């Protein structure tokens, strides 16, 4: 009996010793995005060697699985110390309105972040009650990826507008390319949808959709839905079974000509596929969005009741630091949210994106939670699926409007 007690006591002390410096990071960065997170954790460990970092990654594109796990943990009262969320309405509309997050205004003040992050980004992550997350990176959603060698072989150029895209698509089909455009599972179709919308309606009308000045049922918007239908006619029919990586692979292999995806694809092409930017893969802004930067950002927040609050704040400081952002972003294929980043560390693609970031009109992405709350985005998946199946633009537009009303958009 005494022996048993001793063992129990010994176990208790070791586990509490471990718990002294612990940090749990919750994200959906796995697979191809994993190395970037690992580099960031390594940097954190250099600064805080005594802290054990628990990398609680839940894989799944755009965080669809991770968000469900996060919800279980938050509702169960065991929030992770710091978790990833898309900057903007996704975090604000879900967790901030429910009063579950800590205000980070003082951290922004003490670290001087208000000056180094662009005002647009700070606006996106704030409400009138505070600032809610630390953006790690900025991604661009409106990029058209292609295979330069194959385009040359087929004798077509990169389309500048969506009507031009449709005629290019017809040309390619006549040359025997079954699916000139490749799309993947539902969220990549939503991603394509928002690019068609921005490219057809223009940046200003896109913003108006989300502040309630423009209704989804407006004839202009319905016409854009119809354009989306035509674009989907150019796409592969087995979309629902493909991840975004599998879809990108088809551009690399030359099975399809184009793919509209965010610029994390650049990281996948260069880091995982070992392709050279400009040769193995090419890029352009999505048709009709030349002077527009559709942005999304990954950010980390601090949930109320985090177990290791001090370690989590240290983690947020690393994330927001120049060194942290320049360690993470070149590997992830994104650009730093800070304006003072060291561009020499970035590849050709990212440098071009960083230039556009400074002189384009910036709008937020719907598919990635910047402009619409989660309750809208998640239900919108079914609207897109219905639209792809039935091609009924007016019906989809009406459904989108009802969703927007329910989610309180434009209130």
């Amino acid at each position, binding site marked *: 009996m005494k022996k048993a007690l001793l063992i129990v006591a010994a176990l208790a002390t070791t586990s509490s010793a471990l718990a002294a410096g612990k940090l749990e990071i919750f994200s959906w960065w796995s697979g191809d995005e994993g190395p970037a997170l690992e580099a960031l954790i390594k940097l954190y460990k250099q600064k805080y060697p005594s802290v054990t970092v628990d990398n609680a990654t839940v894989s799944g594109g755009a965080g669809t699985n991770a968000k469900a796990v996060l919800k279980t943990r938050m509702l169960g009262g065991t929030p992770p110390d710091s978790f990833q969320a898309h900057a903007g309405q996704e975090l604000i*509309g879900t967790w901030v309105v429910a009063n579950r997050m800590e205000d980070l205004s003082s951290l922004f003040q003490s670290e001087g972040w208000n000056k180094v992050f662009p005002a647009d980004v700070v606006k996106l992550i704030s409400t009138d009650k505070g600032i809610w997350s630390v953006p790690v990176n900025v991604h661009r959603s409106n990029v058209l990826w292609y295979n330069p060698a194959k385009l040359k072989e087929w004798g077509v150029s990169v389309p500048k507008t969506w009507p031009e895209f449709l005629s290019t698509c017809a040309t390619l089909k006549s040359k025997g390319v079954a699916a000139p455009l490749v799309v993947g599972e539902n969220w990549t179709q939503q991603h394509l949808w928002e690019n068609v919308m921005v490219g057809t309606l223009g940046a200003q009308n896109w913003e108006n959709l989300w502040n309630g000045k423009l209704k989804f049922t407006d004839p202009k918007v319905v016409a854009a839905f119809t354009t989306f239908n035509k674009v989907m006619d150019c796409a592969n029919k*087995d979309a629902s079974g493909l991840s975004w990586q599998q879809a990108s692979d088809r551009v690399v292999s030359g099975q399809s000509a184009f793919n509209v995806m965010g610029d994390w694809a650049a990281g996948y092409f260069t880091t995982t596929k070992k392709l050279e930017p400009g040769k193995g893969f090419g890029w352009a802004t999505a048709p009709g969005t030349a002077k527009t930067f559709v942005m999304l950002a990954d950010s980390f927040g601090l949930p109320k009741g985090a177990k290791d609050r001090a370690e989590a704040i240290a983690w947020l400081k690393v994330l927001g630091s120049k060194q942290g952002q320049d360690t993470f972003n070149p590997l992830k294929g994104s650009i730093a949210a800070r304006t003072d980043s060291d561009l020499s560390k970035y590849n050709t693609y990212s440098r071009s994106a960083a230039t556009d970031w400074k002189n384009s009109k910036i709008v937020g992405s719907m598919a990635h939670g910047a402009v619409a709350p*989660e309750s809208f985005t998640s239900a919108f998946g079914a609207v897109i699926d219905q639209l792809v199946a039935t091609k009924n633009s007016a019906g989809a537009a009406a459904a989108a409007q009802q969703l927007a009303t329910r989610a309180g958009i434009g209130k």
Partner: protein
Amino acid sequence: MKGLSKDRLWAMAVLAPSILLIAIFVYSFIARTVYVSLTDWGNDPAQALAIDPIIRWVGFQNYQELFTGFLQGRFRQELVNTLFFTLFFILGCLGLGLGLALILDRNPRGEGLWRTVFLFPMSLSFIVTGTIWRWMLQPQGGVNQAPTLVGAPPSTFGWLSSNDAVLKFDWNALPLITALVVGVVLIVLAVRAAREGQRTRMVVAAACAALLLLWAVFIGPRVKLLAAPELHGFNFAMIGIIIAAVWQMSGYTMALYLAGLRGIPEELREAARVDGANDASMYRHVIFPLLSPITLSAMIILGHISLKIFDLVYAMAGPDNISASVPALNMYLTSFRQNQFALGAAIGTILLILVAFVIVPYLASQFRGEEGHS
């Protein structure tokens, strides 16, 4: 005080914990879910995940939304999917299971091995089955490549991604169809009662049938659940899922049938042979009637599996593929992605009612049977 013998006290003491646990973790949770489904929890995003959410009672509004709401077309398609899935899944499993059992009953060589082979899929989880079959049913792989083995061009059938459907009907006609089906069933009951000479039963059934049919002819066509017609039918995308599910569960029905076949006394078969029955008529008049209780229990078990199915569909078709979706999947998405807990609870309650339709008659017949024996 005769009832409180030592034995009885012991029995009650032993049973009490499980009764208590079931009362809390099954029945009170069911009650809680039904209660939540009658509130507006989650319709306002700000209240959905708050620590102390403000929840209001709204009655049957969530159910009305599901059956007639413009945004819930997905749920209605899923109900139709479930109906067809259940039908074909049960037919497939029973047919294939019985076929395999009949073959094995003839004592082929290596019977034990075959039994293991056919029963093996059941040991896998639906997630594993779903993943394997999703690979095989890829548009450009597996099954679709099979014709190339004999030199034919590959098939292009979208096993899981097809949007085509057959047997389509307008959701607005649902009350009409229901009235017609129930009416026909009542007529059959009336005819049967007439044959058995039960006058009262016949009159009641015939009167109800007449009322329903009158309603269906004169009022039914004018009932509109939705503003616009909404077509739902049997989507081809479900075929792949049905194949995978049948593959997984038919070994189980085979085992049930095999046990049943082995349980039929040899004397009965011999007696039938002596009476001059050939193989076909022996199966038809002797063996199949003796197997009917097994068919019933298999149908009950398969039926509730198919109504609740979630993991197989999630693995094979993905969460947003409406043409191949089921209510359980929608419940998960509605509750845990859109945070609409009340609406999710309403879908859960509908599922519970559907399962109850299958289970309750079975339980009733079981209890009646037991009382009969004692």
